[in-house]
């Protein structure tokens, strides 16, 4: 199964697990499986519009999936995804 690494602040919503095994054939599908397994993550990853929050980046083997095919990016069982925020302020 594909593995997703969870950033520290979101681990309270995954029973303290740092890595979650997920199934699905695309980035969108595995993120869907992740939030089905751990529904508390949804509000922190997705805006009310249903889109990923603007600061949420998903890296597939170190490449930003926005630069591949976004949610349609294919994933394999051996792939590893990381959820990483980008930050901004004033």
């Amino acid at each position, binding site marked *: 199964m594909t593995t997703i690494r969870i*950033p*520290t*602040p*979101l681990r*309270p919503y995954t029973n303290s697990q740092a890595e979650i095994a997920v199934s699905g054939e695309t980035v969108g599908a595995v993120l869907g499986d992740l939030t089905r397994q751990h529904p508390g993550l949804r509000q*922190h990853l997705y805006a009310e519009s249903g889109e990923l929050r603007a*600061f949420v*980046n998903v*890296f597939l083997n*170190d490449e*930003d999936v926005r630069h591949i095919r976004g949610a349609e990016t294919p994933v394999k069982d051996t792939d590893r995804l*990381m959820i*990483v*925020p*980008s*930050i*901004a*302020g*004033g």
Partner: protein
Amino acid sequence: MLTITQGALGAIQAHGEAAYPNEGVGLLLGTADGEGKTAVTALPLPNTWAPDEQANRYQVTGVDMLRGEKEAARLGLDVLGFFHSHPDHPAEPSRWDHEWATWPWYSYVITTVARGRATVTRSWQLREDRSAFDEERVQLP
């Protein structure tokens, strides 16, 4: 509560002073348990906002954040939050800090750099409902 070690505070202050009159930014790395968080080091990252607006804006790309997360993992530490400087402004979250905040739990450490010298350092956490920042208790060295 957030404990900031001498090493981490020194790095935060030095980066804020080096970036002055612009904002400096980076990651706070350390350990966390049920008692609180301890920042043992601070990792400066590039401010990629437009150069002519860096006196009151900062941005760190996802790629640089990924690099920081990997450095934390290499050191056996967690990313506890972020630090940035407010040149000649109070160490309180700005409207933009709130608007672009990420997740609750992270520490947002803000340091005033007044006329080039780091002075006040405070820390803030986003509320669970994202409605505001609350001040986090900080133990400085």
